[in-house]
């Protein structure tokens, strides 16, 4: 593939790049820019964080799971490109020195780039901005002191004025379609090709499993596929919309969903990962399907000119098997908004609060009228081979009075719905009991009881 992009403000044109060469490897091995580090090569530590800017804004992204074609037409800034041309340090760099934010220094470039990106986007929740940057030395306290300090200072002119892409724009490649129609045609012609959206999963296939991908179709450059339409009667989320875009779009309407998406993954992963990818890879522990199922979302699948729409929950047939045919791809997911009474709560349980894969993810949407349950849509991740509804629990609730007694009885039905497994994240017993306790939490929260351990202060 041929690509053009800005590297620290300078135009770079590359021809014949492999679809799966990572930005990190290219920077370090081809370009000799070794400030960007490899810590884990799977997007979990943030040592490889680079800043990617396009017309939609500036994002921190993990360079180890970012393929070169993904930055075609964009602006890439590395730690070496943060200081002024005359060598004056970026305010975050200066603050990190002054506040003793580095010890061994290996994670530091990644932190500095995340912090600089946060300064540009105006993010002042440093825990949120830095959740994807691991530091083993400092305990984070001095880094956050530096971040607080740097956030007070203006974005330096040399970064603010850097264009969002090279003057010639993106190069055109056959496997980088720019319209949905073109994608549909390409997909039909190459049903065996691997679709790459944010590469936060596919990157691991390449880096860890050494899996040959064959033809690769990139899709995040398709503007119309990234769109999130918020209409009075529905929210339609394009498959290539990022998790971060979903978080921002749902913050007001579904605050519990948006709050869970904070914990879906780090800022770097949320900026790259897509809603369509999280659904289409069929993982039983993807965090978006359960809440979307609880909201009654429909999945729109496209094959050439043909479009079909199915309830999202029906997409997941069994572990590793989805209802998707050759040449077909996920185009969008649609949340109907006719139920103004949606009372969605999403509970994520993992070993660590941030940047962790769920042991259990429960999404509850229970409608109450006249103190009676009139409908319940409850869906879980991590409890079965697929994201799955808790139908027996729903049955045990609907039509009953919304009381502690009903909840206590309904909790018994979880064992009917789920036979979870034990693995390194949690035991089967713990999964089953806590899933049931999440219903308890939902009820208590409804009664105004404090139930969120993250809200407790000293």
């Amino acid at each position, binding site marked *: 593939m041929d690509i053009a992009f800005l590297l620290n403000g300078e135009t770079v044109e590359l021809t014949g790049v492999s679809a799966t060469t990572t930005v990190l490897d290219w920077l370090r091995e081809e370009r000799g820019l070794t400030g960007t*580090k490899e810590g884990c*090569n*799977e997007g979990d530590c943030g040592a490889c964080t680079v800043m990617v800017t396009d017309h939609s804004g500036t994002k921190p992204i993990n360079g180890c799971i970012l393929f070169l074609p993904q930055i075609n037409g964009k602006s890439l800034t590395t730690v070496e490109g943060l200081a002024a041309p005359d060598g004056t340090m970026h305010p975050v*760099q200066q603050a990190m*020195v002054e506040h003793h934010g580095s010890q061994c220094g*290996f994670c530091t470039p990644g932190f500095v780039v995340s912090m600089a990106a946060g300064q540009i986007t105006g993010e002042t929740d440093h825990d949120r901005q830095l959740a994807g940057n691991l530091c083993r030395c400092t305990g984070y306290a001095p880094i956050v002191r530096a971040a607080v300090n740097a956030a007070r200072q203006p974005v330096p002119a040399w970064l603010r004025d850097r264009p969002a892409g090279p003057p010639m724009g993106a190069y055109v490649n056959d496997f980088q379609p720019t319209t949905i129609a073109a994608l549909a045609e390409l997909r039909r012609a190459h049903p065996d090709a691997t679709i790459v959206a944010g590469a936060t999963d596919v990157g691991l296939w390449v880096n860890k499993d050494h899996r040959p991908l064959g033809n690769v179709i990139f899709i995040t450059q398709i503007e119309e596929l990234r769109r999130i339409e918020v209409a009075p009667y529905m929210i339609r989320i394009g498959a290539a919309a990022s998790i971060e875009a979903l978080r921002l779009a749902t913050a007001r309407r579904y605050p519990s969903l948006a709050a869970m998406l904070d914990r879906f993954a780090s800022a770097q992963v949320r900026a790259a990962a897509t809603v369509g990818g999280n659904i289409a890879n069929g993982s039983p522990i993807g965090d978006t399907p359960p809440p979307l199922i609880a909201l009654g979302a429909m999945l729109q699948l496209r094959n050439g000119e043909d479009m079909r729409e199915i309830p999202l929950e029906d997409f997941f047939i069994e572990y590793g098997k989805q209802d998707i045919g050759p040449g077909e791809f996920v185009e969008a997911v649609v949340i109907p908004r006719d139920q103004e009474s949606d009372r969605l709560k999403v509970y994520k349980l993992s070993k660590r609060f941030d940047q962790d894969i769920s042991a259990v993810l429960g999404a509850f949407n229970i409608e109450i009228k006249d103190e009676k349950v009139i409908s319940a849509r409850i869906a879980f991740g991590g409890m079965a081979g697929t994201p799955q509804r808790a139908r027996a629990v729903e049955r045990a609730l609907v039509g009953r009075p919304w009381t502690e007694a009903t909840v206590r009885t309904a909790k018994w039905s979880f064992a009917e719905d789920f036979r979870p497994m034990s693995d*390194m994240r949690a035991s089967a017993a713990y999964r089953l009991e806590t899933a049931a306790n999440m219903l308890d939490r939902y009820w208590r929260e409804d009664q105004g009881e404090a139930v969120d351990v993250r809200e407790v202060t000293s």
Partner: protein
Amino acid sequence: MSMGKPLPHDSAPLHVTGAARYIDDIPVPADCLHLAFGLSHEARGVITAMNLDAVRSAPGVMRVLTAADLPGVNDISTAAHDEPLLAAGDVHYHGQPIFLVLATSHRAAREAAAKADITIEAKPALLSIDDALAARSYFEGGPLTWRRGEVAPAMAKAETIVDGRIEIGGQEHFYLEGQVSLAMPQDNGDMVLHTSTQHPTEIQHKVAEALATPFHAVRVETRRMGGGFGGKESQGNALAIACAIGAHLTGKPCKMRYDRDDDMVITGKRHDFRIAYKAGVDAKGKLVAVEFDQYVRCGWSMDLSLPVCDRAMLHADNAYWIPNIRITSHRLKTNTCSATAFRGFGGPQGMVGIERVLDHIAHRLKMDPLELRQANFYKKSRPQETPYGQPVKGFILPEMVKSLAESADYKGRKQAIARWNEKSTVLKKGIALTPVKFGISFTLTHLNQAGALVNLYADGSVTINHGGTEMGQGLNQKVAQVAAAGFGIGMEQVRITATDTGKVPNTSATAASSGSDLNGMAVKNAVDEIRDRIARFLATEAGVKPRDVVFAQGRVTAGEMDMTFAEAAKHAHENRISLSATGFYATPDISWDRAIGKGHPFFYFAYGAAITEVAIDTLTGENRILRVDILHDVGQSLNPAVDVGQIEGGYVQGAGWLTTEELVWDEKGVLRTHAPSTYKIPACSDRPDVFNVALWNGENHVPTIYRSKAVGEPPLMLGISALMALSDAVGACGDGYPHLNAPATAERVYMAAKRVQGAR
């Protein structure tokens, strides 16, 4: 004067701009080969067939080596000669290196290594402590016991006895920079290695052994590590030796770095422990007798397990007078990765044991755990002896704990938490104060020595070199401050250089928190030597006494003479005064008889105390640290900013070990948590919301460098307060004792809370 100033880390401007160079950042010649190991897929067995054709024919592969192809000794062990670089016949753990691929790129080497077809006849593997006990699989033939007093009669007379056991998980180092080495072949068969290691001298020795050359043919250089934490004390040997052998056989530079997953599977971790205890107290809650059985999963080879287990025994008392005690250590050999050094080196596990005992007793006696701890502290007035016979001198913990409890309002908050817990059903809070007394010195006495080389150039600039290595702890910054202070010059005149076995030979590992104590003193001795030579020379010229020559603020004055330091250097040089000196230091007053467990193994103790407040959710076990207050003793600080950094970072690392960091092996001995996706070190939001750290204002009672104290390891054990606070919160759910194991993951907290609720 540079001493005691909170100056930034010397490499901070390089860190933040990405200019700090780590091994993998060093430009290499185009013909450099990249190495990867092929690993065992069984935990225990015999290799019966090995087909490496697919590996050899994979793209970019230049050579593939097995044990039979090695030119010298097939061993990477620290001392015991029980760790082959490449398995020969028997395999002892899942992930053990079996063959070595040399390829044109890192990716090509890794991809090729995955293509091997190896048949291993599996044997029953000893994976757990119970497996090893059942098979009596011990290092050194059986357990080791140290005693003081008469436990049985004392226990018989005790007013109250508790017994129980705690399981304490291991810990992955998760240095951000994985293991990495680069070997550059030289003429005459010599080898230069750039290695991310805490122990360049051991790398030198092991590479020489592998190449069958004298030590002088190998030079090892380490500028900086991207984190070590003990994980680079011995675990870099394999890569360095592999690279040196590759370079020796091919004549090309060879580089090896582990992919993160390989790093976590291959290398050793903190030892996991089971500690069974029985403790008796008198009517006032004073310990009269304690018995500990420390069961330790050491893994397949000895590595550093014996001294680690010794240190666990040496810290079984923590800060408490225990008149009658038996400590038995079971060093179990298992078919898992060989557990290794990790910040604290067994001390943390030993300390968790006694803190657990006190927590359990306090619960039984319905006493405030802090009051119980205070009642059992060593007496300061008339130094009492540790179980191993060392008098506890300079014991400042009682004052420190009192001061901390007051400044952090322990009592008031404890009461407020009790009231809060009464009103809250599903959420509960807990609080705990735990102290730290940590022995400073290597228990292997001969390691307590250090060398330095200081060069003063004729323009007044200085380079310093010493045997210590920089892994982020700020050692070089502290030592540079020592040098600048000695010459009375500014920091900008002092240049820190890479640790180099060619400059300072026969060094010890940078470990046991000893870095600045040993190397700071060695550098000071070298600086003093040069300064005294200049002083003697100028004193003669000026007609004053050498001691009246003053080095301060970049100037040197001797009677009427007054010149810049640079002028003094030039002047001395032109008068043929040597401006280069080596320095040496050996820790005084230490002795140790390991067999009987008696002696004076530590030069002194470093102290600290932490109060942690937590909240738990009893519906899920999710938990958070809300507030931490720390008072820590670094003696007279060499650099308060660096010291506070060690304390904050040590606390979070210690709390991580005991909360979210869970290592899970499956029934086949496969480590399932081999990447940061599954192994969860603390993230940014896991740090305490309120995090108050203060340094105890005092100086070391023994003559260390500027009366400072070591700070590398002790703060990690402040994290034990998080585990005890969680125990307190779980205890608030009912009447039973929580018996909380570590790491106290959400799942363990949930299950413990359920047990305690059941006991209501």
